């Protein structure tokens, strides 16, 4: 069982390495990737079921006891995030079969995708801040490679902005880690939980907390720090953009949730906690509003969707900022539902471009007549994003609004509701322009050549879209299981006793059972 957290990193990593070894044949690489992604999904399911049955599962690398060694640990939140990562990874790997051109495949698209998944998964199961940084770097490097594959001029432009701004974030992150280590002498989450409460300098601790907030804020694209996202996300092919939009910013949100529930808690920060919480609440509100307004004035589908990522991040931060059980339930629910929906919208956008020849709303139209199925498949994630009942987004927003009302934080509730309305505006704009309006080039421009061209490869494109849409509907109609999952995740976050026992409880009771240690045996 303790191998499960390790396997959730090792499976994508091994798939990537085998994929690199098979770089001569794109077909072998594709087969390997599909196989590896399926195994990854199975491991993620096993991990979640183990965590559900036995509580947090920890593994000590190299048998070095925590807090001295490297700990991998999965609690309910981590396990659920790994599962969603595996689902998104598999969907995009299938979609890529019809979307990614031969040139990008030869340059190593498939292995890079798996490296990215390993990085994301590693960030979710790591048990210490420094390895969180390491996995962030793995993600950054592989996403930079994915973004610049093919090396179009616009793509390189986007990739450089992306990397430059993310490097600022990782640098700040590293500096904050150094300061934290200086104050506490440990970097293990479970160990930090107690250690920060003994730091006799709440002011300095709060300053470090804000440094982490800024570093993760850049990663998750919150209000004043989001500018890298719309500058880069519209450039790569949609299979890549879907993975990015689904997973990357959400790792930032996950890191925020993790660090503010186990390290910088209200007990650790004391009087300064209210300040940080207020800051988070303002950030949440402004992120929602600016994101949705940014989307309203765009006319490229990819840019509209990119700005909506930002606005949706606001909701998740709102859940964290409320810092109540219900708020965290909302944040976790939102996080899980949103990854599926957002990745799916990008995948749909790819098919729209395939059928009409453009992402620009002014130049496309008439899709409803050509493909009613696609229209339905677009409506499901789009309405879910806006929060229509009975889709998954409705429940996510419902829980958050309830949580906001509970603590009488009226203005953030108002912002959440208004932003939901404006999201409908953006989604109906895409609907009206792309699906209902006749194609500006006449129906001939659309249905004949493009339709036939799309008919060839549309199978692998539509299958993952339909599968993700099905997940959205299932969450919407049967929200209770996911709600229970989110509730348990939130309870574990607010009371990390189980997490800490899992990390330290797996210490070997008798030192004698340990294999001869390298230090004692080596020449």
């Amino acid at each position, binding site marked *: 069982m303790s191998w499960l957290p*390790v396997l959730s990193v090792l499976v994508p990593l091994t798939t990537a390495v085998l994929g*690199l070894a098979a770089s001569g044949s794109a077909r072998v690489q594709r087969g390997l990737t599909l196989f590896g992604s399926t195994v990854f999904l199975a491991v993620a399911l096993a991990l979640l079921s183990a965590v559900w049955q036995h509580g947090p599962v920890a593994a*000590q690398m*190299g048998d070095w006891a925590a807090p001295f060694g490297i700990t991998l640990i999965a609690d309910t939140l981590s396990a659920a995030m790994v599962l969603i990562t595996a689902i998104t990874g598999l969907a995009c790997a299938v979609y890529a079969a019809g979307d990614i051109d031969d040139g990008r495949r030869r340059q190593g698209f498939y292995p890079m995708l798996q490296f990215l998944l390993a990085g994301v998964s590693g960030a979710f199961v790591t048990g210490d801040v420094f390895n969180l940084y390491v996995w962030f770097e793995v993600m950054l490097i592989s996403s930079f490679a994915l973004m610049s594959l093919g090396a179009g001029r616009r793509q390189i432009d986007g990739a450089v902005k992306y990397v430059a701004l993310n490097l600022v974030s990782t640098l700040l992150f590293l500096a904050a880690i150094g300061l934290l280590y200086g104050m506490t002498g440990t970097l293990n989450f479970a160990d930090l939980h107690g250690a920060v409460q003994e730091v006799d300098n709440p002011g300095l601790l709060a300053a470090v907390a804000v440094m982490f907030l800024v570093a993760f804020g850049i990663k998750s694209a919150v209000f004043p720090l989001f500018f890298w996202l719309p500058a880069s996300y519209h450039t790569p092919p949609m299979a890549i953009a879907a993975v990015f939009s689904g997973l990357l910013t959400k790792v930032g949100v996950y890191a925020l949730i993790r660090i503010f529930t186990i390290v910088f808690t209200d007990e650790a920060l004391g009087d300064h906690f209210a300040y940080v919480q207020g800051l988070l609440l303002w950030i949440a509100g402004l992120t929602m509003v600016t994101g949705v307004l940014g989307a309203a004035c765009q006319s490229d589908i990819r840019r509209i969707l990119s700005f909506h990522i930002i606005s949706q991040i606001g909701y998740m931060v709102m859940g964290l900022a409320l810092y109540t059980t219900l708020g965290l339930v909302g944040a976790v629910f939102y996080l899980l539902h949103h990854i599926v929906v957002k990745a799916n919208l990008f995948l749909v956008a790819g098919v729209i471009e395939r059928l009409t020849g453009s992402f620009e709303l002014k130049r496309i139209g008439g899709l409803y007549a050509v493909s009613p199925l696609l229209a339905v498949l677009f409506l499901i994630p789009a309405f879910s994003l806006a929060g229509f009942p009975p889709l998954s987004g409705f429940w996510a927003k419902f829980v958050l609004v309830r949580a906001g009302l509970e603590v009488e934080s009226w203005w953030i509730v108002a912002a959440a509701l208004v932003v939901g309305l404006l999201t409908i505006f953006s989604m109906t704009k895409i609907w009206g322009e792309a699906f209902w309006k006749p194609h500006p080039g006449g129906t001939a421009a659309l249905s004949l050549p493009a339709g036939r061209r799309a008919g060839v490869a549309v199978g692998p494109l539509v299958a993952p879209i339909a599968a993700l849409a099905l997940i959205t509907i299932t969450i919407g109609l049967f929200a209770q299981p996911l709600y229970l999952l989110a509730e348990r995740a939130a309870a574990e976050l607010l009371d990390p006793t189980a997490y800490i026992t899992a990390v330290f409880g797996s210490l070997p009771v008798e030192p004698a059972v340990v*294999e001869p240690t390298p230090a004692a045996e080596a020449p």
Partner: protein
Amino acid sequence: MQSLILRTATRLVVALMLIFSLFLLWRGHNLPGGGFIGSLVAATAFALYSMADGPAAVRRALRIDPRLIAVIGLMTALIAGLWAALAGVPFLTGLWNKIPLGEGAELPLGTPLLFDIGVYLTVLGGVLSLLLALEESEVDDDRLD
């Protein structure tokens, strides 16, 4: 760069550096050194060689594509970590196997060394594929002028 002095000196220095890099790899287990440092020294040796004789000579000397070296290295490191699964201990746990050399002496061989060799090959392959790609694009540019 065409320089008789550089080429003659390189021939001597490269051999020394490669031996030194292996020495660093070996001693790195308990003393300063290790796979990462060792491979950087080896990569420096090949960089020097490519300055003196050109990237094509380096590729000939390596015999295999540096990217493949990196892949082999990654696999070696993974195997070293997974070895622990056979013994039923956590991932990456160091396992030791002593080979008796007679007269009471023994040679301990373990997975940490295997892991270090994996790191060595990965870094060497990675650095060299970057380096050679850059050098070769420079050669192309020269030809264009």
